[in-house]
């Protein structure tokens, strides 16, 4: 049975309309609702289903971030992960934490914990980078099954359906492997109140990147964060004829 490591990130809730800081250094995060990155919920769900099918023996949820990242780990534990690892990164160090750092942290933990399958979401909805799975696989020299919409377990290998530009693609990867979850992989469950209570008793180990031997020196400097250009307000047309006239005017038809 596989040992599974799942990376979860605490991000601003997907439904929040974000605000850029007036000094253009980033977006306002204080006092803003946060939640687990939606793709990571899918990653955890996939791991829990593996455990329910007796394909996984233990699920470890790991999150890199400030103290509040523990809430995200608790959510993962309430969904069915067995224990958590909180890699504490806070303040300016967290502001410039990049997938390159996270992937080295995940890779080290995967080795230390003798992991067979690492699952992360395909991208975090804050930085929209879509890099961590690919980079973790590279650091470990494992294959990557990116943008998974279906994972079938064989002996020593996984058959993966991937969402690619023109449709779907099927690959076989040898385990150990790193997977990234796409939207269509599954429908994540809600944590029930009894499970939330139980999750409070599950252990969370706290470590630092330094403990893991990972250098988090920034590789990328954020020069500025600004609002996107605002579109000019349009007009509501009375009927289809008016629309056809506008399309003709614009040279679209």
């Amino acid at each position, binding site marked *: 049975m596989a040992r599974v490591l799942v990376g979860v990130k605490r991000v601003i809730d997907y439904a929040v309309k974000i605000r850029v800081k007036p000094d253009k250094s980033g977006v306002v995060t204080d006092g803003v609702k946060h939640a687990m990155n939606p793709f990571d919920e899918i990653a955890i769900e996939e791991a829990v289903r593996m455990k329910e099918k007796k394909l996984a023996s233990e699920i470890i949820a790991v999150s890199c971030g400030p103290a509040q990242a523990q809430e995200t780990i608790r959510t993962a534990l309430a969904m069915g992960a067995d224990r958590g690892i909180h890699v504490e990164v806070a303040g300016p160090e967290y502001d410039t934490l990049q997938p390159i750092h996270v992937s080295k942290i995940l890779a080290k933990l995967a080795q230390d914990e003798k992991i067979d399958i690492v699952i992360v979401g395909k991208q975090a909805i804050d930085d*929209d980078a879509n890099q961590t799975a690919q980079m973790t696989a590279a650091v470990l020299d494992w294959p*990557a099954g*990116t943008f998974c919409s279906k994972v079938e377990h064989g002996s020593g290998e996984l058959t993966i359906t991937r969402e690619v530009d023109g449709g779907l693609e099927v690959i076989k990867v040898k385990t150990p492997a790193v997977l990234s979850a796409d*939207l269509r992989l599954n429908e994540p469950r809600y944590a029930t109140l009894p499970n939330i209570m139980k999750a409070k008793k599950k252990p969370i180990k706290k470590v630092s990147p330094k403990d893991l031997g990972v250098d988090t020196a920034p590789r990328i400097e954020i020069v*500025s964060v600004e609002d996107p250009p605002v579109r000019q307000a*349009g007009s509501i047309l009375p009927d289809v004829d008016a*629309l056809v006239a506008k399309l003709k005017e614009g040279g679209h038809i």
Partner: protein
Amino acid sequence: MFVNCSRTIRHKTQLSSLLQRYQSTLVIAEHNNEALSTITQNALTAARQIGGDITVLVAGTKCGPVAEAVSKANGVAKVLVAENDAFKGFVPEAITPLILATQKQFNFSHILAGATAFGKALLPRVAAKLDVSPVSDIIGIKSPDTFVRTIYAGNAIQTVKAKDGVKVVSIRGTSFEATPLEGGSAKLEPAPAGDYKSNLVEFVSQELTKSDRPALASAKTVISGGRGLKSGENFQLLYTLADKMNAAVGASRAAVDAGFVPNDLQVGQTGKIVAPDLYVAVGISGAIQHLAGMKDSKTIVAINKDPEAPIFQVADYGLVADLFKAVPELTEKV
């Protein structure tokens, strides 16, 4: 002192133009063993903005026609060709060592590809092997080390300065014009040889959605449907209109999740980013995640019966109407 100061500035300018001259970019071509993907032409434009020599790497099981085609693009100095069964399915586990060997030999300052499923899967693996932090899905280039990209589903624009020696960058196709495949005559050379076959991964099969309509990401007109279409059959209304307007058809996540259309039609933060001349949103409310994929369209038209739908806040022309009446009428009149 003033003299000294201006001399320093002049010296710096010279230095930066000297650096500029020594940029050299490797563009990873995306293709299907038959034809070059348009995204590579967009990437070439980005490479030209960076300045310096441009080399294109064509890897696949069959590279001849693609290498020939891309060698004719203006500004391409060299095309490296790696034809090998190892690259079946374009698996990153096989192409990464090829890129590393190429990088070792030529020492590029930049490695570029389009931010497609291919580029997104490949470039971060390459970057990690080079121990550099990649930059995803850029929409602009301020200087050879400073790039512009969007974060938070396109709701903020981030400018970043990459400090690593090699810049590994994926580019958003809709933000860069396509470099035409003419006016150039690059040399074709074999890429560094090696045993690139990966035993970690095996490509099994592909199931591509077949369509005679233009490709979603590069179409001049896109007509998208959402939950308001109510069923897969009703999408026929959009297909008929699309055929008449020579448009591609897209969809919101709601329409994909409901099974109306396949996943690869999804427009949005986690689907495709499009920026056509005309985007017609039919029965789409306009969630943040959908707007992320289409709000750079030149003209946006929304057809929705709910006057409060957020899509109307970005639409140039809105029609508050029942789509089941308005779309057939529009089809008839265009």
